[in-house]
């Protein structure tokens, strides 16, 4: 029907499957995010480290090509080992934090500020789907700069080194995949929870860094003053780093985590504490979201 027919008419067409409706939110969000030039440039720049990493892997097996320009022993430039993949994950995860602190605060706070939640929730669309929709915006963007290029690097290295290397080092792939997912979930949940509670976007973005850096400093003070290691529970970087090391190396640990995500052996906590700390952080974020994401505020 043409738009000039100004009359109300019921809708009798088909409906989309209900499971797919949460994907409507990221589709609209990507259209908005695409308009930000800063974000586009930053996002493209996020692929720089993976590209350099791919180049290093290539050089390791094609050092003779550099011999043409006079470079000798280029294949010894860097070892492609657990530290290489952990540092890759560390750098990319730090970029995730920046990206999430830029994108995250604008996800929920405008809806809360303008009472738009009642419009979402009045539809056959649940609170869980709303959070999933908002979260998937970040999960998709952050995946593309973490585990997706990470697995491609693993594939590239495996392509040059052979199937035996891949079989011997499968933990690198699973570490990159699961390690990135853990960080993406934490960062996304944290960004959404802060977005739901803090209406002012710059403050919410700043708090993201606060949770990461200020809490770590607080933990270090506790460690220093109390001569204990339990202050590390406040250090998200430490908790994530120690989980990553376990994912990458199992019980036979040789590394001390990744760049920005160090887990030095001298202030080690039991492994379960790291998992528990991260689970607790996620639970707090979920609780904050559950309290705020409602169709109507309850005034008691």
């Amino acid at each position: 029907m043409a738009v000039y027919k100004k009359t109300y008419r019921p809708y009798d067409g088909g409906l989309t499957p209900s499971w797919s409706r949460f994907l409507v939110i990221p589709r609209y969000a990507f259209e908005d995010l695409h308009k930000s030039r800063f974000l586009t440039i930053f996002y493209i720049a996020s692929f720089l480290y993976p590209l350099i990493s791919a180049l290093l892997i290539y050089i390791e097996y094609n050092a003779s090509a550099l011999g043409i320009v006079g470079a000798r022993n280029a294949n010894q430039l860097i070892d492609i080992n657990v530290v290489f993949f952990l540092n890759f994950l560390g750098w990319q995860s730090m970029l995730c934090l920046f990206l999430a602190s830029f994108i995250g605060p604008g996800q929920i706070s405008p809806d809360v500020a303008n009472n738009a939640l009642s419009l979402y929730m009045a539809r056959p669309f649940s609170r869980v789907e709303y959070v999933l929709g908002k979260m998937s915006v970040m999960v998709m963007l952050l995946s593309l700069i973490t585990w997706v290029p990470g697995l491609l690097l693993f594939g590239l290295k495996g392509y040059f080194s052979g199937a035996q290397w891949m079989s011997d080092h499968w933990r690198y792939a699973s570490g990159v995949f699961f390690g990135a997912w853990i960080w993406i979930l934490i960062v996304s949940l944290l960004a959404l929870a802060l977005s739901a509670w803090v209406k002012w976007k710059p403050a919410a973005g700043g708090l993201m860094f606060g949770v990461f850096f200020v809490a770590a400093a607080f933990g270090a003070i506790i460690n220093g003053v109390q001569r204990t290691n339990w202050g590390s529970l406040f250090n998200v970087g430490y908790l994530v780093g120690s989980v990553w090391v376990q994912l990458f190396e199992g019980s036979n640990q040789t590394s001390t985590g990744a760049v920005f995500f160090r887990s030095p052996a001298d202030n080690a906590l039991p492994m379960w504490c790291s998992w528990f700390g991260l689970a607790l952080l996620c639970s707090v974020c979920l609780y904050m979201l559950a309290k705020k994401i409602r169709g109507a505020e309850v005034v008691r």
Partner: protein
Amino acid sequence: MDPVIELDALEVRFGNRAILKKLKASLTGRSIGLLGPNGAGKSTLINTLLGFHKPSSGTARIFGRDIRTHAREVRSLIGYMPENDAFIASMSGVRSVRLMAELAGLPPEHALERAHEAFFYVGLGEVRYRPVGTYSLGMKQMAKLAQAIAHGPKLLFLDEPTNGLDPPARTRMIQLIQEIRDRGDLNLMLSSHLLRDVEECCDQVLILKDGNVAAFCNLEEERRANKRFLEIETRGGVNGDFLGAIEQLGCETATGAQGRIKLILPDGLEVRQLYEIAAKQDVQIRRLSHKRDSLEDIFLKAMEAADGRL
């Protein structure tokens, strides 16, 4: 007639405070008015039917579907225009309505078309590409109506739709609601504290007071049953000729002091005919007042009841 909404001992508590107290009613009207003073529980009732609040006991059914067990299915039948400002500020009007229609299950291409249609329908065609955050209050109200009807609901909840509207905008909003109602494709529930809005749009009224059902009536039947009372003040009218003439038209009359006549107009008789008779008899009608409208009577009676129930 199958009930549109059935309230089955519906109780909602916030903490220790009961907001809705064991409400029982079967609402069958095409257009249901929800009346009550501020704090009576009107918005809470709508929010509960939408699934925003969980009933602490009892339940409600919409088109036979239980709101506790079929919440998603129930919401797929509903369009909701909230009382307060509710919009996605950064999006254009048509884009935000399209988003909402897609979330209701419409495929993107249908959602886009219906979002445009809805905006033209509510009279915001010219501003549909502007961000909703820049709309005036009246435009925001219309935009809320557009998002509520874009997906073609079977039941429309309108929570104080004329709030903050100037008289022409209010008239336009009431006209739209009447048009939607008269098309017969959907039922609507209009919550308001303005008797006039409900009177003009609804055929059934549920009056709440302190979380209880204070009154429940079929407005159409009340209107039909209610005789048309008039009180006129005349100069020279309390004489046999004038009274006799209007009684001949079928009016029941009673005279009072200072030329006052109380009368009940029969169906079909217009006030104009009284003026004609008065002119012929050289009687001046100095004042003419209609009896208070029926809904106001019902409402006041409900509010006066000591225990909140009729």
